[in-house]
């Protein structure tokens, strides 16, 4: 594996964590969906700095890979990744959740800024991915891939499984799902709220190839995402909600939380270390 | 044109087939006589004879031969070949 890419992803992950903490603090009393953004940092880094093709000069270039954030509340991590690749500036990042920003608390379709679709209503992104993958095949675009990031709690939604069935029915080998399996949802552990495990078996039984990896290991993510499949492919990324900040990790309170100045300083010190 | 000629003509023009193919023809036997083709055929027959057929008769109209029987109800006598 290309050590440079791994290094780039690791360095970017660190910056993205800082940016997520900054955005959360900057959002003030409104707070932000910080826990689920921190769990998907390495996934975003691996996709944006190691796996996906895009063209910053021409964000809607037909040859690009399509990324769809189905767990829209995790969008801070995507904004931070878009900053890493130069699609949005730090000034823009700091408008997150401010009036008149284009960086909403859930993504709003903005192809020029690399945001393919609006999301926020859970369970819809995989259908968009299936439609996009079918459309690419229909156009004869054999080289662009479609990547959809889902939350594990999001997999409670029935429409996810409708989409999963249709993807394998249409043999969408150009479609990859990554599941941010942080095992926590709004009200508590996924096992307590609505058991969704075992995810690998579920995706397998829906006709997908599926693999489980450490979702905070850039190496494992890059390796899993570089495999070419002849079926739709699900990468179950085992993650920790709030990863990188000791008081947030595995704590459902930080699904959506606000940071005091003291907490902000502690969090920044931890993710910078 | 005799009634038989008009009747055959409705089939050949609607389905784009030859006169030799109409004898014994049944609904769904050829691609053109699908549910949509059926309604086209009924319209063509209605135009040819100046009648309006009832829904039940349209549904019962299942073959070239059966159609001749049904048309009797509308005082359209199709001559034997």
């Amino acid at each position, binding site marked *: 594996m290309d050590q440079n890419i791994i290094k780039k992803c690791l360095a970017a992950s660190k910056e993205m964590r800082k940016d997520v903490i900054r955005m959360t603090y900057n959002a003030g009393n409104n707070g932000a969906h910080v826990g689920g953004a921190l769990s998907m940092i390495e996934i975003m880094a691996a996709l944006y700095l190691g796996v996906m093709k895009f063209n910053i000069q021409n964000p809607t270039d037909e040859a690009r890979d399509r990324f769809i954030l189905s767990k829209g509340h995790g969008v801070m991590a995507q904004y931070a990744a878009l900053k890493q690749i130069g699609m949005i500036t730090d000034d823009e990042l700091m408008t997150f959740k401010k009036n008149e920003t284009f960086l909403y608390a859930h993504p709003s*379709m903005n192809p020029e800024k690399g945001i393919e679709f609006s999301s926020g209503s859970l369970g819809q992104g995989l259908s*968009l991915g299936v*439609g*996009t993958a*079918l459309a690419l095949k229909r156009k004869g675009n054999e080289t662009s891939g479609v990547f959809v990031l889902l939350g594990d709690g999001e997999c409670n939604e029935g429409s996810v499984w409708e*989409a999963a069935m249709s993807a394998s029915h249409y043999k969408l080998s150009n479609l990859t799902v990554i599941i941010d399996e942080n095992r926590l949802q709004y009200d508590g552990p996924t096992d307590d709220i609505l058991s969704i495990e075992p995810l690998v078996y579920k995706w397998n039984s829906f006709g997908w190839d599926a693999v489980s990896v450490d979702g905070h290991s850039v190496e494992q993510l890059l390796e899993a995402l570089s495999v070419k499949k002849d079926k739709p492919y699900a990468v179950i990324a085992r993650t920790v909600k709030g990863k990188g900040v000791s008081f947030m990790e595995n704590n459902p309170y930080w699904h959506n939380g606000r940071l005091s100045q003291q907490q902000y300083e502690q969090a920044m010190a931890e993710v910078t270390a | 044109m005799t009634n038989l000629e008009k009747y055959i003509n409705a089939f050949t023009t609607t389905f784009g087939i030859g006169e030799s193919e109409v004898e014994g023809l049944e609904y769904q036997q050829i691609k053109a006589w699908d549910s949509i083709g059926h309604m086209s055929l*009924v*319209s063509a027959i209605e135009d040819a004879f100046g009648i309006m057929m009832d829904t039940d008769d349209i549904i019962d109209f299942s073959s070239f031969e059966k159609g001749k029987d049904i048309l009797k109800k509308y005082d359209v006598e199709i001559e034997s070949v």
Partner: protein
Amino acid sequence: MIDFTPSNIRMWSRLGSCGAFGLAALELPAIDDKVVILTSDLTFFSGLERFKSAFPDRLYNLGIAEQNMVGVAAGFAKEGFTPFATTYAAFASLRSADQVKVNMGYMKLGIKLVGLTAGLSVGILGATHMSFEDIAVMRAIPNIVVLSPADCAETVKATLAAAKIKGPVYLRLTGAMNNPSVYKEDYAFEVGKAVTLRDGSDVAVIATGTMVYHSLQAAELLAQQGVSCRVVNMHTIKPLDMEAVNAARGAKLIVTVEEHGVIGGLGSAVSEALAGQAHRPPQLMIGMSDCYCHAADYPYLLEQYGLTGKQIAEKVLISLERKQ
């Protein structure tokens, strides 16, 4: 090209609005090479048997999964295609309402969602399959053009017109097989432009879908009673033709007639449009009352809800008497 000959129009009417849609669909690839059709296990019911054999690769069956179908259609639209998606109106509008809101409303993706058997035509299947909430739902979501053709000829026109609209469209199909014809020959159809089918000064009837035909019948009966009726075919419910609505203000009574609930449908749209006007006649809103009825066949249900020409005429007379 599809011909609006009297015999074709009669054939479409026989097939009903689903069949007419299916036949019109056959013309779509020639108009727009980007057309694809998605359905949720309703290929034949949507009249798409011939489309399937003529263009097998353009038809995507998504199974009994309407929410996913709308999302998949959104993906196609985003990538530059013109996706039509068909299902029962009940499921198009309510089962997948959130997908409709996010993809068609919020993102304005150019999905043409076709709601089959809206109203009472499949009434024997029960309230699950009847649809008299769909106009209310679609109208409440921003950015969606809502089309409601009066008969099968207009269904063909509206289908072809929908393909040319860039944004999202909801195409509401009412009526059963042997759908009565309002139009016997070719005419000009323009999205957003209502058609005045009959002029009159006492009463202005604004109708949509199958109720256009029944309203014309009512107008005929009323004429025999010395009541002169204008009848307007409001085939586009959103955007509403304000000129046509305003023109109705000159009458003694405005009557809206629809095979839809009286809450949120065409009647509501007209009433909302006129609410700010100081001078407006009273409005009689004819549609389905606020309840779910027994399952029954279509003619029976039309009668139950008072939606036949004769019943419409009676309601108009009563309203006029009350007014005097």
